[in-house]
């Protein structure tokens, strides 16, 4: 095997590579552990929603509408008498599902465009100009414009957020790849006659994983925030879906008499994004030791 002999030089200089090492290092990082705990809470809610939630999140009971938080309804009830605790718990499913899908698609698209521009330098100018253009449009506005054209459906929210957040990843990856492709081990692989595709995905990409992982955590956080904003504006998930943004939107008319309807979904968003941000900071400390403590 030609490739087996080529040991990536960057791997030796970089302390930690993704894998078990990474997990071990993360366990010692206070930020990452705190973030992981918060994220675990949200993930647990999403996975076990039917077990945790005491009621169907869409069960309408007008006789108990706008009840303040009590032992029977921990987070109170909303304008339709729906149990807010159940709605917030189920909301984690919607937000995380959209977030994770967006991260998968942005990563795939970002890697494609980033490698295309950074490694193959094919259409570098064109690809990056297009990316620059999309970076110039505020993500919320871009997503609104796309959802407005495609119609308010969850799949369209995912599409619009993917378009909005792919350029950032592509840009980060491209700058990283531009450095790696000049590294000695890339040159060595090339001199041994390895195919460009092999070098790109077997040697260059693994060495650019850190920025991809860091950027993806950030994208997940942005996606959760922006999805909430879209639903809040009524151009996100359809109104009958219990997403955190929809719950905030539902609660707005009752804000003065029943603040709990808007307070709890907001706290849920905060816990989720805070977990992601802390975890992301921890990841960056571990993966990019030069930035530690910054």
């Amino acid at each position: 095997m030609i490739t087996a002999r080529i040991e990536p030089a960057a791997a030796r200089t970089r302390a930690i590579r993704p894998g078990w090492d990474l997990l071990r290092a993360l366990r010692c990082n206070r930020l990452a552990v705190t973030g992981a705990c918060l994220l675990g809470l949200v993930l647990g809610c999403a996975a076990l929603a039917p077990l945790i939630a005491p009621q169907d999140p869409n069960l309408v009971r007008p006789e108990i509408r706008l009840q303040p938080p009590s032992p029977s309804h921990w987070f109170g009830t909303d304008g339709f008498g729906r149990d807010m605790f159940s709605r917030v718990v189920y909301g984690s499913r919607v937000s995380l599902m959209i977030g994770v899908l967006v991260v998968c698609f942005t990563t795939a698209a970002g890697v494609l465009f980033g490698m295309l521009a950074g490694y193959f330098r094919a259409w570098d100018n064109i690809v990056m100009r297009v990316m620059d253009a999309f970076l110039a449009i505020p993500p919320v506005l871009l997503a609104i414009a796309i959802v407005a054209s495609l119609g308010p459906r969850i799949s369209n929210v995912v599409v619009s957020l993917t378009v909005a957040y792919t350029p950032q990843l592509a840009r980060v990856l491209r700058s990283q790849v531009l450095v790696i492709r000049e590294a000695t081990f890339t040159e060595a692989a090339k001199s041994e006659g390895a195919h460009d595709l092999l070098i790109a995905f077997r040697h260059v990409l693994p060495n650019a994983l850190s920025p991809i992982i860091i950027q993806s955590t950030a994208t997940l956080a942005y996606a959760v925030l922006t999805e909430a904003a879209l639903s809040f504006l009524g151009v996100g998930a359809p109104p009958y879906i219990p997403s955190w943004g929809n719950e905030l939107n539902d609660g707005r008319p009752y804000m003065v008499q029943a603040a709990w309807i808007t307070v709890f979904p907001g706290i849920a968003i905060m816990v989720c994004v805070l977990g992601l941000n802390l975890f992301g900071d921890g990841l960056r400390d571990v993966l990019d030791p030069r930035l530690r403590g910054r």
Partner: protein
Amino acid sequence: MPILFVVGVFVFLLIHITPGDPASYMLGPSASAAEVDHLRTVLGLNLPLYQQFVIWLQHALRGDLGQSIFMGIPVSTSILQRLEPTFLITILAVCFEVAIGIPAGILAATHRNSWVDQATMAVSVLGLSVPSFWLGLNLILVVGVRLRWLPVAGYVPLAEGDLWGTVRTVLMPSFSLGFISAALIARLTRSSMLEVLGLDFVRTARAKGLPASMVIWRHALGNAILPVLTAVGNSFTVLLGGLVVTEQVFAIPGVGQLVINSVLRRDYPVIQGTVLYIVCLYIVINVMVDVLYAAADPRIKYA
């Protein structure tokens, strides 16, 4: 300029990615066939795509972004009408962002690893995790409803001559936007300052007996400000995006509300125009940041 062209193509195509016929989609199910036909002719939707684009581009270059379908006035007029509150809130939000973010970052950097540093960074990461519109909602609840210090919603135009009234209406929205961006600026200022504070010239400045405030504000900050400036410039996109939501929360008749109303009314020319307009704004701001760059760093010269 290539940015504008790409955005132009995207904005033009927006109208064509609608499911089915754009004209009947815009007018809704209650429109008659004649009305749909009329709109299709007005928008030129009967022509081949490339011809439509050339015509649209020619008009857009002349500043003619078309007519609002719903309001019946030119798009540029409807944007200009609503520019004032948006402009004021953005400017004020950037003031909050800079006035809170930079001092907080400096404070954290100069007290590295103390409780001041940790508290500042904790608030900053919290600020990054809160949706700005939710912060706005809570501000309304506490400052507007409970304390009754500021009006909960609406906007008093400058033309009414009540300057204090205007400021009172834009204070909360701009704070809720500015605070979120300040969190990012504080983190950046801190890391940039930490980098500079470890350099030799700072030690020299200290060694020759300059007062600490002089070292920090003149020597260190002057060199640490560049990345922060870039971030402030970039934060405009985030601010303008957040503004769309925040204007809705505070019921402010600005450009953001115009976008949302147009989306709900499927008034595509207005959506197209506003996106294009905001991107132009972004480009202008970036040019301004470049000029500021040259002012902040005498080494940078633009030919």
